């Protein structure tokens, strides 16, 4: 392992300055070990309240935006003595509002002894104040803070704070700092705790068992299987299930109440009222892992992801929608039974209990068993996988029969074996610059296919995509976009139709909102087909044929 040292030349006095020093250390390195070391040091020596805030910020529990960005732009330009248009020009180049403000203002005093918690507390009072008072407080903060502190402050203020550290790395750093095991820490940090209300002691060191009632277990996530399944060895040691295209959910039934958590640790209980009925079907002390799907109750098959999408968007569900898109949980694992944590038991054992528990449940209820896909050989399973799309599945999940339920993404025991994505060759017609790290690079493209008889066909846009190319390819295409711009529409440029890209996507649906009549799921650029002339790109008819087959 690399030697890692944290370069804290002088340890700053105030808690906020200490946090900004951590931010700087994380921002200055691309090495994972150095990031973990810097974080672990923070979790050892920062004020305890700030450590909790840091965990909150790193696990997506960041404060909401406190002010409109319009106000911030106006104030910053005014404070810097610059016209707003020049501020906007600068923002376009820096690509980040918080950074632009931090850079454009006169040098701050850099004297501050407040903690991170103090600063967030101050920010949280802002929305309650009169505008003149809000402005006075923000300007005072800008004048007092040094440039990097100002940047971090602005990030907190605009609700866009990210530190480039995954929950996994954070948990590892916490484990280094506290000596506790990573899976146990991951579990303690789950759920709906609120920074500012929970202490370091209560959250990390010795949580109150009563608090744990609603707490979900950390989700076990699978890697994509890139090698042939034969690499997994004897098929008799493995179970296969369909991989559904819904929302991964954990349904908790404890002490007479239920909680439904998403994989993103969002509490979805209110959005899916149908799961209250689960309390009548299963004993308390049960935790299920499965897929929330919009369900066709007549045919007993999943509805399209579109139907589920309508439900995800609603905090409260109107009756009509509840009737049109009722949801079920297709359960595939049992994490807790009779109040006992089953995660260390082998998958086959958990699965047996699950199958018995869900046997003969009424069809009117919200629970379904996600069936196992029986198979004798890998080649037979490969044939079954080919039928995934017919069942509205994305492919297969492969799980080792002896596997415990681990936390986070781990290699070895669980694999997702998705069907090959759908693919179409399309022509790039619009380009737009990216944000943040990709500001100043053209990374967001609109793609089109041919429509009409040969000779008089036109390009019809059908999707956008903004991932899948390497930085080097983005640099190359950016240079090309600059030289081949036809027209500018604000940040968007139309370009000469000259480049064909292979677009991969997971699904296709009818759409009335798009001129092409289709909407794609997870479109991305798989390859830049520099070998392919524009005339040989696919057609709208090709897309509509895919819609007929898979829509």
């Amino acid at each position, binding site marked *: 392992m690399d*030697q890692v040292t944290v370069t804290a030349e002088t340890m700053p006095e105030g808690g906020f300055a200490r946090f900004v020093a951590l931010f700087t250390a994380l921002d200055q390195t691309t090495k994972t070990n150095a990031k973990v070391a810097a974080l672990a040091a923070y979790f050892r020596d920062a004020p305890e309240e700030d450590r909790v805030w840091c965990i909150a910020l790193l696990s997506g529990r960041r404060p909401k935006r406190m002010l409109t960005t319009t106000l911030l732009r106006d104030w910053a330009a005014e404070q810097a003595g610059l016209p707003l248009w020049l501020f906007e020009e600068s923002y376009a180049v820096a690509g980040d509002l918080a950074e632009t403000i931090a850079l454009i203002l006169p040098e701050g005093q850099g004297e501050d002894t407040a903690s991170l918690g103090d600063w967030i507390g101050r920010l949280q009072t802002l929305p309650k104040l009169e505008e003149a008072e809000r402005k006075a407080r923000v300007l005072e903060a800008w004048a007092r803070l040094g440039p990097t502190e100002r940047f971090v402050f602005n990030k907190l203020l605009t609700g866009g704070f990210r530190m480039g550290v995954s929950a996994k790395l954070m948990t590892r750093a916490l484990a280094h700092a506290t000596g506790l095991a990573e899976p146990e820490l991951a579990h303690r940090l789950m759920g709906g705790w609120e920074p500012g209300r929970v202490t370091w002691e209560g959250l990390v060191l010795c949580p109150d068992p009563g608090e744990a009632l609603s707490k979900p277990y950390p989700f076990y996530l699978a890697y994509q299987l890139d090698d042939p399944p034969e690499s997994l060895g004897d098929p008799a040691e493995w179970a296969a299930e369909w991989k559904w295209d819904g929302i991964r959910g954990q349904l908790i039934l404890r002490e007479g109440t239920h909680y439904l958590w998403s994989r993103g640790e969002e509490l979805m209980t209110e959005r899916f009222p149908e799961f209250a009925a689960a309390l009548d079907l299963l004993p308390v002390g049960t935790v299920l892992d499965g897929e929330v799907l919009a369900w066709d109750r007549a045919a007993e098959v999943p509805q399209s992801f579109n139907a589920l999408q309508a439900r995800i968007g609603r905090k409260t569900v109107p009756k009509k929608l509840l009737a049109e898109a009722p949801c079920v949980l297709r359960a595939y694992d049992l994490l807790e039974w009779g109040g006992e944590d089953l995660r260390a038991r082998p998958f086959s054992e958990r699965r047996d209990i699950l199958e018995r528990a869900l046997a003969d449940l009424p069809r009117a209820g919200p629970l379904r068993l996600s069936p196992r896909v029986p198979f004798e050989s890998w080649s037979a399973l490969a044939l079954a996988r080919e039928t995934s799309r017919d069942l509205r599945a994305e492919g297969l999940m492969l799980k080792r029969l002896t596997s415990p339920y681990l936390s986070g993404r781990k290699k070895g025991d669980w694999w997702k074996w998705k069907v090959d994505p759908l693919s179409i060759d399309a022509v790039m017609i619009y380009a737009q610059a990216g944000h943040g790290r990709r500001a100043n690079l053209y990374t967001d493209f609109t793609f089109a296919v041919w429509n009409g008889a040969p000779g008089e066909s036109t390009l019809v846009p059908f999707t956008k995509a903004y991932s899948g190319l390497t930085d080097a390819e983005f640099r190359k295409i*950016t240079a090309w976009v600059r030289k081949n711009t036809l027209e500018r529409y604000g940040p968007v440029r139309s370009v000469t139709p000259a480049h064909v890209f292979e677009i991969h996507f997971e699904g296709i649906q009818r759409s009335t909102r798009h001129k092409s009549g289709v909407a794609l799921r997870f479109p991305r650029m798989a390859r830049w087909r520099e070998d392919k002339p524009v005339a040989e790109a696919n057609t709208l008819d090709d897309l509509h044929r895919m819609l007929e087959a898979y829509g």
Partner: protein
Amino acid sequence: MARDPVLSFTERGIYCAAGDFYIDPWRPVDRALITHGHADHARWGHRRYLATEAAAPVMRHRLGGIELDTVRFGEDLRIGDAEVSYHPAGHVPGSAQIRVEVGGEVWVASGDYKVAPDGLSEPFEPVRCHAFITECTFGLPIFTWAPQAEVVAEIEAWWRANAAAGRTSVIGAYALGKAQRVLSAVDPGIGPILTHGAVEATNAVLRAQGVALPDTVQVTAEVRGKDFPGALVVAPPSALGTPWMKRFGAVSTAFASGWMRLRGVRRRRAADRGFVLSDHADWAELNAAIAETGAERIFVTHGYTAAFRAWLESEGYDAAIVETDYEGESLDAGREEEAVLAE
């Protein structure tokens, strides 16, 4: 008949009709007056060149057997009907602004310039004029440089910390100017200093003309990082991340450039550190330098020209954009990457 302007902007470059010469032309001409030796200003293929004595050795090194006359800073020349003199631009050693006077009207073409002294280049000298041709590579108010001493202290702290941790420090800095600026500013007592061949070639030229640089060891095929514990390696930015780096074992990488002011650029370059050190004027310096010329007419050449021109107009100047082949619009990554290299 209307009199020709002192300087005009042609497809070959900035042209003086009264003296029948060009300044930093980008297509072959008979007579080229050159501000400094960077490749976008001193190009191949002109019949005769004129540059400062201090800029000449690097130009000869880079362009080979050119016909090159030299001039001292402040020396008055007469070329045709034009009076010409060269004045320090503070950009790199030998870099000049070129003052051209015809019939009492004075124009100054400033090439690239930096106002704050760097301890290496001849310090920038404000020149009064009627019309001023200025770059604006960093012509936006987000570009503000800290004093050089502060940046050098950061570089030294980074180097020391790496040396203590057993890592080699590799800093990407342009081979002419930035590299020597870093070399002459850092404390050579911290550890050995190694240089990439491209940097060392320029070092040799500058040392021969009397520029004081610390002792350096050129990185050749035999050089290994383990033989030079705690070393600082100065290399062109393009060498970072290439197999050339393998010889140094555990490294920490950094770039020294004005672009490092932007977090997005810093992160995209994926170096461990970015030091904000530029050989161009920052926003405040551009504005101060322009004000000091007393000029009413300002021509902006390369950089954030549209925004900077509009700003100068709002400040009451008669400002225009001139399309040149110098470093160009930096908004785009492709060009920007080049600019990072070329700056």
